[in-house]
């Protein structure tokens, strides 16, 4: 019996040796399968890290990431469009459109009346951004950016004119991202309104289209008007004014927790304006003009 057992064990050893020496192995199972490997097996060796994968010989922790976050850079706007190319959209400005907008359904191009260069803005009023749905989204959204995040206060100016021929309703003001902070609206009848806040429509879930303050001022067509917007996130102060020559005519001033009314953080950081935005409404076609867009630091003297 022992002899047979020895013979059987010897056979197994010989068989295994044969397997080791061959680079192509065919495994026969006692049941029913073949195991095939057609690659080169000559360099296979058991890794010493197999059973000690976390030992210091095998795993050396990564060093710290060395990327240095750049310091934010503040920048303002001083835009009279005199250095812009005629019939082109001014540099550093964005004009919103999507695939549903018609070619030239909206445009903003620099024109020259012989004395001055400024921007002609047109909107066909036919399309608008998809979101937020059910909100009064404008068709025409023309914007440029600035950064006063460190100062957290500033002053913006913009000149607007509504022509007598094919004039449109227009709004201009400052926003924080997509959220209006304060803007003026010149309606089709040339009445002047101030809008504070809105839309940030869905997140607020209260149909927040902003709060409108009607002024008693009626503007005239074919006349340039200069508007001034002030904000100071340190004191939650905002204001809008009409500037005629050196006279500042207040339109609205008050407290507003800038851009934080429906913030992700109830008592957290306040995000200050960084966009100067001009819009023309959905459903109305026409033209307006824009010039002298300035964003500057707000000082005690200002």
């Amino acid at each position, binding site marked *: 019996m022992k002899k047979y057992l020895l013979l059987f064990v010897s056979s197994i050893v010989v068989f295994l040796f044969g*397997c*080791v020496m061959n680079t192509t*192995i065919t*495994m*026969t*199972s*006692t*049941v*029913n*399968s073949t*195991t*095939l*490997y*057609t690659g080169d097996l000559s360099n*296979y*060796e*058991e*890794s010493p*890290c*197999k*059973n000690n*994968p*976390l030992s210091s010989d*095998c795993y050396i*922790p*990564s060093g710290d*990431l060395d*990327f240095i*976050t*750049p310091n934010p850079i503040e920048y303002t706007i001083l835009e009279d469009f005199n250095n812009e190319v005629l019939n082109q959209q001014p540099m550093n400005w*964005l004009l*919103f459109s999507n695939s*549903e907008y018609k070619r030239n359904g909206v445009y903003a191009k620099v024109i020259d009346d012989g004395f001055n260069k400024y921007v002609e803005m047109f909107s066909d009023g036919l399309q608008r*951004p*998809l*979101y*937020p*749905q*059910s909100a009064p989204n404008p068709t025409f*959204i023309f*914007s440029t*950016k600035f950064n006063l995040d460190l100062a957290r206060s500033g002053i913006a100016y913009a000149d607007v004119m509504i022509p007598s021929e094919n004039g449109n309703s227009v709004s201009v003001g400052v926003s*924080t*991202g*997509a959220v209006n902070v304060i803007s003026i609206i010149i309606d089709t009848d040339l009445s002047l309104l101030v809008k504070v806040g809105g*839309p*940030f429509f*869905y*997140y*607020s879930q209260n149909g927040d289209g902003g709060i409108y303050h009607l002024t008693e001022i009626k503007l005239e067509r074919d006349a340039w008007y200069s508007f001034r917007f002030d904000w100071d996130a340190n004191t939650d102060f905002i204001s809008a004014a009409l500037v005629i020559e050196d006279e500042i005519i207040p339109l609205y001033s008050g407290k507003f927790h800038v*851009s*934080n009314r429906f*913030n*992700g*953080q109830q008592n*957290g950081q306040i*995000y200050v304006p*960084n*966009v100067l*935005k001009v819009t023309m409404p959905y459903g109305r076609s026409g033209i307006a003009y824009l010039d002298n867009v300035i964003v500057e630091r707000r000082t005690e003297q200002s």
Partner: protein
Amino acid sequence: MTFVVIIGLYTTNNLQAKPTIVYTDEDYERLNAVIHHVENVLKYGHIYNEDTKLLPDAINTLTGEPAMWVFPNRAKVPYSNLANQQNFFRTLVALSQVTGSQKYKLEAMASLGEFMLNYQNPNGLMYWGGHRVINLDTLEVQSTESDNGPHELKNMLPFYELMLEVNEEATLKFIKQLWTAHFEWDTADLNRHGSYSTAFNTNVFGQNIIPDIIQFDSDGLPIIPDDSPGKLPFVNSATDLAYAAFTLSDYTGDPAPKIWAEYLMKQYYLASNPNTKMTVYQYKSTLVTKSPQECAIPTYTNSGCGDRVARQFRDFGLIARESNVQWKNTQAIYVDNILMLLEAANKYNIDYFVDWAKDYIEGYLDYTYIRINGKNMIIPMFNDGTVVYGYTTPEAGYYGPSNMRIGYVEMPTTYLLPILRTILSIEENSEKEKLWNYFREITETFGLGDVGPLGGTAPNLNLETAIDDPFAMMTMIELYNDTLVLDYLEVARTIGNNIVKERYHRGFFVESEIMLYSRLDQPETLALLILDGVIRGISSNDMPYYLADSGYIHGYLLADDGVTEDRSYSHRYIYNKTIYDWE
């Protein structure tokens, strides 16, 4: 020096001889990359806010900071959404298994433990899913929709085994409330959105089963009811409900949840086209509740205006329904749902789920599969076989802009697993033949080589394949498990090496070298650990199981122009950022 194959080791579920594999340095290099990734995720994930064990959903691989959701007002919220971290928890448990160190599993348990203790609504729902996150600055619950964003799971398939181990009471309450908040017992309306205000129902699953929702017309075709008031029974939500109910029955021994889960899955089966066998994304359409004035605007795609495909594809007549679309959301139908059905069939002996899976995937491949220019492609169509290829949409709608030409859709590698697992679940060889032939062609087209005739025991594989895809690797591992043909394992190793080479950068797994964020839910690390376990001789049945990679956040955010508001998904706005998009 040697590569020894020893005969005579048997697994309990496979009578074939199981070879012992040499664990090489190259094998360890893959594991080493996974360890680095996990250690870095834990290190940077915890550094940001040391007051919590919660981790961010993704990490900026340049700075180590959490990914941020940017609201329309510029508010940046670092977010933790545990529904989107399930593959990371599976990775941690698997890493403990292969390294023998419990610290990784304990990390998973600590994170889940804190979450379940502090972020479960009294009604049972967790604050997670498509519209709710934890703000890692404040550790408060944050909605990305309205102020009161709903509960939504779509193929998240939580790691319930671990959750039950961590907090049994919270897990069981959640599973029960998942159904109460999303399912209406008397109408079978299923809402992907569940309310955090719905009271906990102590009699959940206690109702009698109702008649099937789907009835048939005189031609034997299913009638899809359009009476659901804004509640769309998307299959991706139903997959989560069914998976939860099966888990509950298995854990408690109560058969009622399992019966309801089978009922729910049956509605999709009944709604399938009986001729083509292609199935549906939903078994109901919505009731029109909005005014004609609101719905006159094509871009207003609220479901209260009725079936969104019927609106945008009205040229196709009655077949044009959201339920019948076979070119969009098909991952939810033919990958995630089928994987869940097969898992349930295997675990809970529901044999007819295998038949359904076979019907679905075979019908889908019969009609839609085509190889074009060396690529696996899908012919866009409705589930009766009506082809949509070449159609140009006349106006904008839920499925895209106007003037959009519908073309072929590339088939992703994720389809490999449901096809293979279906084949492996079928008992009769004669029933496998057709599906195997599709599988053979698809794998070869993906560049994996020829798996050979049915059974896969005589393959001619591409041992030096360039593919770097975890799903292809899982497929090779499962073929190896089934056949014990070592070539499959070698291809899996090659793919694993490719994954490390192409996707492991700056100490993290990323989609490619230039991508900025490393997502915790990415499937690569779990797949690599399953491979590592198999090489070590650990049965993949004993390791965390790959089911889905579907985590997302949906809501309102600041568009990339920095000026307009959009409503979109984390993977379209955050995880598509490259290292060049960030400063």
